[in-house]
């Protein structure tokens, strides 16, 4: 038995009972009274269409407040979102999903899923471990299989006049790609969907219930770790099990926490970006026809879809009480760090509220800004480009079958979860 095995002989979670427990806040649900003082990103109105809410707040209350989730702030101007993303001294990433549970301060600087949950200086080294696997060059290796998968998904539509592009197309693409990179069985995809939903969409449940829902994800990953220890192979899981940081193999909680990150962050983000882009093209025939006629414009158009429909909102925790850009923040207040709101700030972008598919200057923040730039951004861009290329080649004519039937994921990752498209 190797030293690596020793780390996982016992369930590492059982050894953590003496750790600080974190703080819980009261669960508040129900319609929002005023978005400036009572915002909630888990209410249906936000999921359905957050942009008018964000635009209104940017004008009348650019750093909105809520007492829900134990208290938090929502900046909607690009400059404020950027300032927070860059300021890792005053804003911690030890929690990046706004919920009714704040992990203990002692969890910093590592956090529960490094490096996304890590603060400097630990962050840099944990991130460095992952970067080589996610360069543009490295992810190119996944492109032929991704393209073949997209074709096979469309082949499976058969003669159907209406297909659900979210559940029968967009969803499968990142799921299969990340499963291949991690070395997990491709047939486990349906389980991943449940893991994703329970991690990202159950945020307003009581913390105990949320914890119970997340437990199967950890059980699954620990089982995968054991499988890889017994049967090492050329994949990211084996790489993480063998990786060293500061002369030592990674702590078991680091290995599993990073696997959580790669699995969850790799799936519904890209699924959302693919779905939102198809939704836009389905309801905007002029843009659809232009991209079919000018496939070379797709990389530019794709950046515009990422700007206008950025799927990812992050969170931060305020480190210490402070007066910041006109508001009094308290230690452990949440920041809901809305890259989507930043991306529609007219002070930063011309025609910010319009989708301009040949926009040449596009410094959008869909993949974040600063040291936490999405480590999977090159992979996501490859998947999004291939998914749209193949779709537009195979299905140049399509429209929304029933606009009112489109549903959007609530919470911090936004994209269509039901997207019935009429083909032809």
């Amino acid at each position, binding site marked *: 038995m190797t030293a690596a095995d020793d780390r996982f002989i016992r369930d590492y979670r059982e050894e953590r009972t003496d750790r600080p427990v974190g703080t819980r806040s009261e669960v508040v649900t129900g319609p929002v009274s005023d978005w400036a003082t009572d915002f909630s990103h888990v209410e249906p109105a936000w999921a359905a269409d957050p942009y008018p809410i964000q635009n209104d707040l940017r004008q009348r209350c650019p750093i909105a407040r809520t007492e829900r989730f134990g208290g938090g702030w929502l900046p909607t101007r690009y400059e404020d979102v950027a300032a927070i993303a860059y300021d890792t001294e005053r804003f911690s990433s030890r929690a990046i999903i706004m919920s009714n549970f704040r992990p203990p301060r002692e969890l910093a600087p590592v956090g529960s899923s490094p490096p996304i949950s890590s603060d400097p200086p630990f962050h840099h080294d944990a991130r460095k471990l992952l*970067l080589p696997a*996610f360069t543009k060059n490295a992810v190119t290796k996944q492109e032929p299989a991704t393209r073949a998968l997209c074709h096979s998904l469309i082949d499976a539509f058969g003669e159907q006049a209406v297909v659900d592009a979210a559940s029968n197309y967009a969803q499968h693409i990142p799921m299969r790609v990340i499963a291949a990179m991690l070395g997990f069985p491709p047939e486990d995809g349906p389980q991943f969907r449940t893991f994703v939903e329970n991690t990202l969409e159950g945020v307003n449940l009581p913390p105990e219930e949320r914890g119970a829902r997340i437990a199967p994800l950890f059980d699954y990953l620990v089982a995968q770790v054991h499988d890889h220890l017994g049967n090492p192979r050329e994949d990211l899981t084996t790489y993480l099990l063998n990786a060293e940081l500061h002369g030592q193999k990674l702590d078991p909680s680091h290995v599993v926490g990073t696997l959580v990150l790669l699995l969850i962050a790799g799936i519904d983000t890209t699924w959302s970006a693919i779905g939102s882009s198809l939704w836009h093209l389905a309801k905007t025939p002029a843009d659809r026809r232009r991209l079919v006629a000018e496939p070379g414009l797709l*990389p530019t158009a794709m950046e515009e879809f990422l700007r206008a429909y950025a799927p990812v909102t992050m969170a931060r925790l305020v480190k210490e009480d402070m007066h910041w850009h006109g508001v009094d923040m308290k230690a452990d207040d949440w920041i809901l760090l809305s890259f989507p709101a930043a991306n529609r700030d007219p002070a930063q972008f011309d025609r910010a509220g319009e989708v301009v598919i040949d926009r*040449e200057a596009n*410094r959008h923040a869909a*993949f974040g800004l*600063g040291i936490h*730039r999405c480590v999977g951004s090159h992979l996501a861009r490859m998947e999004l480009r291939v998914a749209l290329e193949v779709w537009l080649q195979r299905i140049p004519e399509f429209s929304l079958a029933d606009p009112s039937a489109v549903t959007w994921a609530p919470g911090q990752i936004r994209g269509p979860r039901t997207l019935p498209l009429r083909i032809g």
Partner: protein
Amino acid sequence: MKVHIDSQRCQGHGRCYDLAPGLFGADDEGYSKVLGDGTVPPESGHEARLAVLNCPEHAIEVVEEA
């Protein structure tokens, strides 16, 4: 005219080597590097400008040579 990257700002978004592959490349971690001495040939002026205008971190400059 030369392109210049502020490596303190670059976070590896890769917009520059997507848009101006003749001027920029990636290192083993995905951070951008200037190819050669960064001199922009006359036909690459537009690419250089695109790289500047699409860097989310404002890490790229085009500097006029004295």
